[in-house]
């Protein structure tokens, strides 16, 4: 029996086929699986539906590379630097090609994924009433409270084909520890048909099972475990590395034009074989600068009996 541990190329090759829906960037500005996104670009996936609350610049890269035909998100941009240029070109000028946009807010996207994980058809809310996100959207159904007649929005469940979740550490079965803000990582993983775990460290089963409350989701959901140190760069991973703010700024400037983006893509993704190659292109010492300057250990917890 083949195990779940595999290379990023194998994981993307097997579990992210053309036309599938893929959840990424679930934690928000941290733990963004950039290494996975770059492999999707290298394998020239097409017609993906990208799902994520905000994705910082990851979705912009996938859109610019022509991988996506649809985005279901609350926000697509560059968190520290501004607008997302490829996203703009796609929406404003169908460049590189047409992109369907299904607008959510952060709350409605998390409710949609929560509903997906609960096996519920929808969850009602009062957010977005009166806004232009509602008319004509497939994601929402207008309704009303049976007793009072007060307006309600039914947020329809979302069940992505696959979620790609970056974590600090995992065992070989996909029992994984994750800490820091979780965003929609848990809901998103539970809502998805399969989960690819991208781990900074692959550790022993004993280590993970020593703290079952820290486990993100059931390994039964996990289809692949990819050991990919620095897999989230330039986004941060608590306890492992900080955010590379300059890298976002650099991308922002480079991607202003299609040509600039193509060049950026060539240099950082297409002409690079894998994550090791990518890391080798970073300025000397960059990784060292991003490493924690101080350990901050969680207080001990005793599961003894």
């Amino acid at each position, binding site marked *: 029996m083949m195990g779940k541990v595999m290379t990023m190329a194998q994981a993307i090759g097997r579990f992210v086929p053309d036309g599938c829906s893929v959840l990424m960037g679930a*934690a928000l500005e941290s733990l963004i699986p950039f290494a996975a996104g770059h492999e999707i670009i290298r394998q020239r996936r097409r017609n993906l539906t990208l799902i994520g609350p905000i994705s910082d610049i990851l979705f912009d890269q996938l859109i610019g590379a022509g991988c996506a035909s649809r985005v279901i998100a609350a926000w697509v*941009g560059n968190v520290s630097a501004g607008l997302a240029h490829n996203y703009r070109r796609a929406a404003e000028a169908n460049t590189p090609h047409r992109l369907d946009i299904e607008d959510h*807010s952060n709350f409605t996207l998390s*409710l949609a994924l929560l509903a997906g994980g609960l096996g519920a058809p929808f969850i009602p*809310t*009062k957010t977005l009433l009166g806004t232009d996100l509602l008319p004509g959207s497939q994601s929402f159904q207008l309704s009303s409270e049976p007793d009072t007649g007060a307006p309600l929005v039914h947020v329809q469940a979302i069940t992505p084909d696959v979620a790609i979740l970056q974590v600090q550490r995992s065992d070989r079965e996909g029992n994984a520890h994750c800490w*820091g*803000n979780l965003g929609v990582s848990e809901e998103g993983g539970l809502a998805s048909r399969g989960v690819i775990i991208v781990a900074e460290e692959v550790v022993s089963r004993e280590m993970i099972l020593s703290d079952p409350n820290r486990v993100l989701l059931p390994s039964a959901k996990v289809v692949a475990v990819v050991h990919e140190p620095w897999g989230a760069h330039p*986004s941060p991973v608590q306890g492992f590395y*900080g955010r590379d703010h300059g890298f976002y700024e650099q991308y922002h400037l480079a991607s202003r034009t299609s040509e600039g983006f193509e060049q950026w893509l060539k240099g950082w993704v297409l002409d690079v074989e894998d994550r090791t190659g990518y890391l080798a292109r970073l300025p000397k010492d960059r990784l060292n600068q991003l490493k924690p300057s101080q350990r901050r250990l969680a207080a001990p917890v005793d599961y003894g009996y």
Partner: protein
Amino acid sequence: MNQKLTYTMQEVMVAVAARQIRDGELVFVGMRLPLLAFAVAKRMHAPRAVGLFECGLMRDEPAPELLYTMSDPPNIAGAIWSTRMINLMGMLQQGAVQLGMIGGAEVDRFGNVNTSYIGSRQRPTVKLPGSGGAADIASLAGRFLIIMQHERRRFKERVDYITSPGFGEGGDWRRHVGLPGRGPAAIITTLGTLSFDPETKEAILASHHPGVTPDEVCRQTAWPLRVSPAVHETAPPTDEELAIIRHCDPDGFWTRP
């Protein structure tokens, strides 16, 4: 920076926003200026205020370093809760969050904010990033602040697209459409502060920042902006407020344009 002034308009905005935070309130904090406003309020007059970050964090002390995003490691370490986004959004919908702060690309006469599409939805002139959590804050927070660059092209009679609902078409529109939050309390801009008429819900110029005249504000507004009879100059940031802002943003990443 205005040559006569010893502070920037961004610093004025931070101070004005900070003064809107009351002690003990739960505040949905965004990034950039609101984050600084939270830090100022905490140290000045609202020591028991608590900040919520939609990525899944709550803090009762501002992070000790400048943040570029709310998920930056210094914002996680020392948080009082690191959790799932939906828990914080749930508190927002419960009505437990008294104040939220949002930015915007366009705002209109009734405080509706657009961060989605300029031009048509089908073929926009500019595709903006979208709501993020702003529409939720605008829908559900007890009250909220809109913090924006004041330019005529951004202050429109009617926004092209309502991402974050203000008072819609005015009057009791919010109640009518079913929104639980009470709506925007103020628009804090690079030129002044706008509040809302309690009846019509139209934005009114309440104060103009130091060095800015009411006329200038009106000229940068694309609808005939009403000026409050009590209009006055915005109280400038105090030395203490400035010290806190500059301690939090020593290089002026967010506060020096």
